[in-house]
């Protein structure tokens, strides 16, 4: 049995994948078709390890979060089986990992932007690597709908602009109401005209 192990390194993250070729699927000697284990080292955090299912969950959440960030959307993502949760945390990002083992507390890792980028790159390298013949649960990057982007992007300036516009409109309208109209001029005009008409008729 051939045991293979490949490592993907980015400055602060190192992902090691171990597995073997799936001979029944026609994999070559250096292709991993069956993933047996993986380990992820992020500098300053405990070593993470697990099975394919866990890696799928991690990949799904991290890649969705990165994809959304590029579109200007910063929101929480939870994996299908709720093993992994990532959410914005100030200018950093909070990664919460729930263990499948009983009695193990969830692990919380705070990633800064550079660490998020390193981790995303490691996962990108893995899923685009031709030495792996594994189907990942993550879908290809697709554009979001305009409605989704507009609803998700928080832009407090737009709301405040609308609020200011409304106040200005109300004040201006109130001013116009309180400005007195020159009614006398109109009355004199009408009386003059009526006098002229009376004179003419006489």
């Amino acid at each position: 049995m051939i045991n293979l192990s490949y490592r993907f390194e980015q400055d602060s993250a190192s992902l090691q994948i171990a597995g073997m070729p799936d001979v029944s699927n026609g994999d070559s000697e250096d292709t991993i078709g069956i993933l047996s284990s993986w380990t992820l080292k992020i500098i300053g955090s405990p070593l993470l390890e697990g099975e394919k299912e866990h890696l799928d969950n991690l990949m799904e959440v991290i890649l969705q979060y990165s994809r959304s960030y590029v579109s200007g959307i910063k929101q929480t993502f939870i994996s299908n089986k709720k093993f992994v949760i990532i959410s914005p945390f100030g200018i950093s990002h909070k990664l919460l990992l729930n263990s499948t083992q009983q009695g193990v507390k969830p692990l919380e890792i705070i990633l800064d932007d550079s660490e998020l980028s390193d981790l995303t790159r490691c996962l990108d390298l893995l899923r685009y690597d031709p030495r792996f013949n594994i189907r990942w649960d993550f879908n290809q990057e697709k554009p979001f709908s305009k409605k989704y982007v507009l609803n998700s992007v928080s832009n407090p300036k737009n709301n405040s602009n609308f609020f200011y516009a409304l106040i200005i409109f109300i004040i201006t309208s109130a001013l116009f109401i309180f400005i007195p109209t020159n009614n006398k001029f109109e009355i004199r005009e009408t009386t003059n005209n009526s006098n002229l008409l009376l004179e003419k008729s006489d």
Partner: protein
Amino acid sequence: MKKPNSVATQNEHANNASKFQEYTAENAFVNCVIAHDTPRKLDFLILVIETLQINATDSLLTKAKDIGLSNHFSCRVQFWKMRCANPLRKNYTFTCLSAEQIDSLVVLISLMSENLYPLIRQLLSSKESKSLNDERWSLFTTRLKSLIRERMNIKRSYIATLLSEDNNEFFRELLVILSLSRGEAGANRLKASLYYQS
């Protein structure tokens, strides 16, 4: 028992997609329209690249020539015309970018961000000393703001706000976008953010 243990380098396998990635980006962009802020986003990303590297335009044009994108990047003027599709520029040309132009710019931005990643990472990292980080950010924002002042329409409220703000949130966001746009997957990610699904 054979147990090879090899390290994957950054670019070695980036261009060769695995069997399951054969479903390409082309399928993902069927029935999609270009987002309204695409020219602005691309122009600002290039502006950040110019901030990080002096004479970045020359590097971009050389790279474009190397990878066979010379039609849109034959000279500086053509490149400048493309960037003038950004409505926030002083010399806004009221033109739209074509899908082909967007693809070319995305590829170039992705390549440049790969090269400039060590610098981008220094700015984004919070693990280094605060004084050093502040100094780097000060240099970066000063240069970026001077480029914005030089090229953008400062009468626009958006630009005026960018120049007056001190928290640099938008500039940080641009740097993160650049860092997430590296490699083939990163280019696809950036491209997907420039379109809307219709």
